[in-house]
């Protein structure tokens, strides 16, 4: 195939500016890599999760109650909208380990001896427990984290004694894809909390649930309204001590997976758009400058009879070729990165069906977006082709306007500026567009780098705020059920306690119009010394009695405004539902919660004088002291949580590195391209200066001064731009559970300044090499490019 002269011209042009072409291709590759990897991961994750729920028949509804006899299940089954119902026993107990200082908890769940139970085990290895009375099937994350092998004997502590059980298999479970003990745990800790599945025959008699259950699993008939069924169940099962009717959305694992999916989807929109916009911007700049410099050539093409469309197509081919290069590399790298993501998900979550499947739709989406972006950027960059008049293009362009600058009129100031600086200042002001673009490019680099640097720090920031500033207790103690205020005094005497506060934490359902959502509501003293809640960053929340406060993401999902009345449904038996005023949102980054004053909880939710837990400040090892306290469900150490997060943040350091590198690549691409274009346009000027006797060094100095001034301007513009980008990015990533803070600390602002200066300096060096290799004499000889 013989290429047309125009195509050959295009290829040669691309080769001659290969540095620029490569840099744009790299940015384009990153854009598509981000797009394909996140898009493909999101689809794979979503498909496999849905399949997993289908195969294992995840319950549509789960009811926690005090006790329900097996024969009462038939009544439940007769209720409208219910397709299947199963009972099970579920209990949280300590897990005996070799290390006496280690506290591990397990949820022991009974499995019915049927063929296709609701929320079934997903076999991974070995056998699934059915009727064996001394055997256990272990949730895979737990067995992996603790190195449990088939045939091992493990020992949960149940009903006051150790119960040794033989491990016969490992399984996945739809309720524990994301393994969390409760709503307060925010990241999975598979070593500290696990799930054991045993036969109903073992657990029932052992815990005194012979022919009765404390949980129901329900599937609904197609078309049934879950809210209506939930209400009906709530009423019908009242006498069995219904504690909570949970729909799928109320299941922690289910909700976390949905959030995760939403975040991956948000990422698949935000990051690629950012990178693609940068690539498009550079293409636009490169093309518009190329067209400007090709003015005569375009005039000649027109004189030869080339039409506007043909010439436009010639230049748009440039961006399309870059798009194709970036697209191809993006598809390859994106597929690879998607696989890395999927492996990470497999490592941290238990979706047994998850695997990297090639999603052609991702490729098609990527290619369509690439073509649209490239054609638009190409059109925008080359649109000036249309306006070039062949006759005019042959005439030299009129010299630039040479009027005095405003600053020159301030004679006092102007007089004191050295001549070499005067040249620099004049250059800047006479080429406003060129330097404006460079400043904008640097501002964008700053913005992207700031987002990158801050993104890595966001999680750390969240943990620091949550566990350093908001919660200042050392321990949170949860009781088994309710306890009296006397427990507070008992514990105060047991350990050297610096401060202690009562706490009432209850799940409540909040209803507003058609919205209904369950949330764990914490009752704390109005003047709590351990909970430092804020309504907005830096603004302490003043809590009033008889009002409900909710974390902002949760309040938003209910479409609540301060002053609205909400119906609060109490899961405790024999307690009435009540109306309460929504007092406002709580600015909390991790987790979703409701808050009330302790007095409000006592008045409306529980009986007066009853508490469900304590918050304690102490240096003592409260975990060890309360290990055998029979009424204590768990002792949560905030120090331990912080340690867990620190481990978690080691992973984040790698992420920061990658993000900063991406910011650097973008920054380099922008600055390198713009500076090179500007230098190419000024070859004649530099050549003339050389002829006048200027040294290379002097020309370098002049450019450096110009670029320094522009960089300062760019960075000054970049700071607010970066803050805005960060805020809008976090806004788009915020979910009900995570409110991502869009704030940026001064430290990060300064770090980014340093990073951008480095990027600019590196890009400058590359351009200096280019200047050094320029033949000035050749430049003066050539009149046409």
């Amino acid at each position, binding site marked *: 195939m013989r290429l047309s002269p125009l195509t050959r011209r295009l290829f040669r042009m691309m080769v001659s500016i290969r540095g620029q072409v490569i840099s744009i291709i790299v940015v384009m590759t990153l854009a598509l890599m981000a797009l394909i990897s996140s898009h493909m991961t999101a689809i794979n994750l979503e498909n496999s999760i849905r399949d997993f729920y289908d195969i294992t028949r995840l319950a549509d509804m789960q009811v926690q109650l005090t006790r329900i006899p097996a024969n009462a299940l038939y009544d439940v089954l007769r209720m409208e909208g219910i397709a299947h119902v199963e009972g099970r026993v579920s209990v949280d107990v300590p897990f005996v380990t070799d290390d006496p200082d280690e506290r591990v908890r397990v949820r022991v769940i009974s499995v019915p001896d049927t063929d296709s139970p609701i929320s079934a085990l997903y076999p991974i290895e070995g056998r699934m427990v059915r009727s064996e009375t001394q055997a256990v099937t272990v949730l895979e994350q737990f067995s992996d984290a603790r190195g449990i092998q088939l045939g091992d004997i493990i020992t949960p502590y149940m009903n006051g004694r150790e119960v040794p059980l033989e491990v016969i298999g490992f399984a996945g479970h739809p309720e524990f894809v994301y393994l969390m003990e409760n709503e307060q745990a925010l990241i999975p800790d598979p070593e500290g909390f696990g799930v054991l599945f045993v036969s109903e025959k073992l657990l029932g008699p052992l815990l005194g649930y012979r022919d009765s259950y404390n949980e129901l699993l329900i599937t609904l008939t197609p078309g049934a309204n879950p809210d209506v069924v939930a209400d009906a169940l709530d009423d019908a099962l009242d006498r069995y001590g219904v504690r909570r009717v949970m729909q799928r959305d109320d299941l922690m694992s289910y909700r976390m997976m949905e959030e995760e999916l939403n975040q991956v989807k948000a990422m698949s929109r935000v990051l690629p758009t950012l990178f693609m916009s940068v690539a498009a911007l550079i293409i636009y700049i490169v093309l518009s400058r190329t067209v400007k410099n090709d003015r005569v050539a375009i005039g*000649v093409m027109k004189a*030869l009879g080339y039409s506007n469309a043909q010439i436009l197509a010639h230049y748009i081919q440039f961006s399309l070729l870059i798009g194709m290069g970036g697209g191809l590399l993006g598809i390859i790298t994106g597929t690879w990165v998607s696989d890395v993501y999927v492996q990470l998900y497999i490592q941290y979550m238990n979706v047994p069906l998850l695997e990297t499947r090639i999603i052609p739709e991702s490729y098609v989406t990527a290619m369509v977006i690439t073509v649209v972006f490239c054609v638009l950027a190409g059109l925008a960059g080359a649109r000036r082709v249309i306006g070039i008049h062949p006759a005019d293009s042959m005439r030299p362009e009129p010299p630039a306007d040479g009027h005095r600058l405003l600053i020159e009129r301030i004679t006092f100031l102007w007089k004191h500026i050295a001549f070499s600086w005067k040249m620099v200042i004049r250059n800047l002001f006479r080429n406003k567009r060129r330097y404006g673009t460079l400043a904008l490019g640097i501002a964008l680099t700053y913005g992207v780098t700031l987002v990158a640097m801050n993104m890595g720090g966001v999680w750390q920031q969240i943990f620091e705020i949550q566990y350093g500033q908001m919660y200042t207790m050392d321990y949170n103690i949860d009781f088994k059920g309710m306890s009296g205020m006397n427990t507070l005094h008992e514990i105060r005497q047991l350990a050297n306690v610096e401060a202690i506060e009562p706490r009432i934490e209850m799940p409540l359902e909040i209803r507003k119009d058609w919205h209904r959502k369950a949330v764990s509501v914490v009752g704390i003293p109005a003047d709590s010394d351990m909970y430092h809640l804020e309504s907005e960053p830096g603004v302490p929340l003043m809590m009033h009695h008889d009002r409900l406060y909710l974390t902002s993401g949760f309040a938003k999902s209910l479409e609540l405004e301060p002053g609205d009345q909400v119906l609060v449904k109490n899961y405790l038996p024999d307690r009435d539902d009540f109306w309460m005023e929504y007092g406002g949102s709580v600015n909390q980054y991790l987790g979703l919660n409701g808050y009330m004053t302790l007095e409000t909880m006592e008045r409306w939710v529980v009986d007066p004088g009853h508490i469900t837990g304590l918050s304690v400040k102490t240096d003592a090892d409260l975990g060890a002291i309360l290990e055998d306290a029979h009424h204590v469900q768990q002792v949560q150490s905030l120090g331990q949580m912080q340690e867990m997060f620190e481990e978690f943040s080691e992973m984040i350091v790698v992420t920061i590195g990658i993000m900063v590198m991406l910011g650097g690549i973008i920054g380099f691409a922008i600055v390198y391209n713009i500076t090179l274009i500007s230098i190419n346009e000024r070859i004649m000027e530099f050549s003339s200066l050389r002829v006048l006797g200027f040294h290379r060094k002097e020309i370098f100095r002049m450019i450096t001064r110009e670029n320094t001034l522009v960089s300062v301007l760019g960075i000054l513009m970049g700071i607010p731009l970066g803050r805005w980008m960060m805020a809008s990015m976090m806004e788009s990533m915020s979910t009900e559970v995570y409110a991502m803070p869009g704030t940026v600390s001064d430290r990060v602002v300064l770090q980014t300044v340093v990073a951008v200066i480095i990027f600019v300096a590196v890009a400058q060096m590359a351009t200096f090499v280019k200047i050094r290799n320029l033949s000035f004499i050749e430049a003066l000889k050539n009149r046409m490019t």
Partner: protein
Amino acid sequence: MFGFNQAPKQAATKEIPAQPGQRPVLIRSENLNKTYQMGEVEVRALKNATFDLYEGEFVVILGPSGSGKSTLLNILGGMDTPTSGQVYVQEKELTSFSDRQLTQYRRNGVGFVFQFYNLMANLTARENVELATEICTTSLNLDEVMGKVGLSERADHFPSQLSGGEQQRVAIARAVAKNPLLLLCDEPTGALDFETGIRILELLKEVNLTYNKTVVIITHNTPVGAMGDRVIRMRSGEITDITVNENPVPPERIEW
């Protein structure tokens, strides 16, 4: 024959009878006026320019800079439009052509030679010519034309590797290879030394004779007028004089 004849919009036509004993009229220009607005000043670049160009003749348009000759050339070449007046090319009214028709006209009807050659720097000599022939319907054999301008050996060189004279030869080859109705040359020797300039003029004359092309040269260089079949003189936008050279001087005898 020429692509622009097939332009979609039907252009206005006018029958122009050839004078007995004369060659057929290729281009007729009637009362051409061109006015530019330069800030607040109105510049009249062309004033009532009326003349004919005949098929196969060699015409030199002479005039000092600012006399309007480049404007006239641009209008004849379909690169610019007059403020008033008409141009007929083979009886079709060029001045009523649409943008699309003008492009077709430039593509198939005219070959341009510029003072500064205006070659594409990143195309070889041959590719520069190919750039023009690729889009026109009746192009000549490329190798033959390259041979005619004496550049067969240098065809694969880039413009930066060619001398000014050689570059101008490429430009002429590019204009000729399209096999156009007429060749419009804007100061074709302006950037060249005397000897190279003479050589280029010889080449243009040869093209005129070999291919029977109408060649129009505009120049401020008065002695060049001696080689034209006719000389059109211009001053301040007006045609001051049209002279027929009974005995045109061969280029090699011209001196300046």
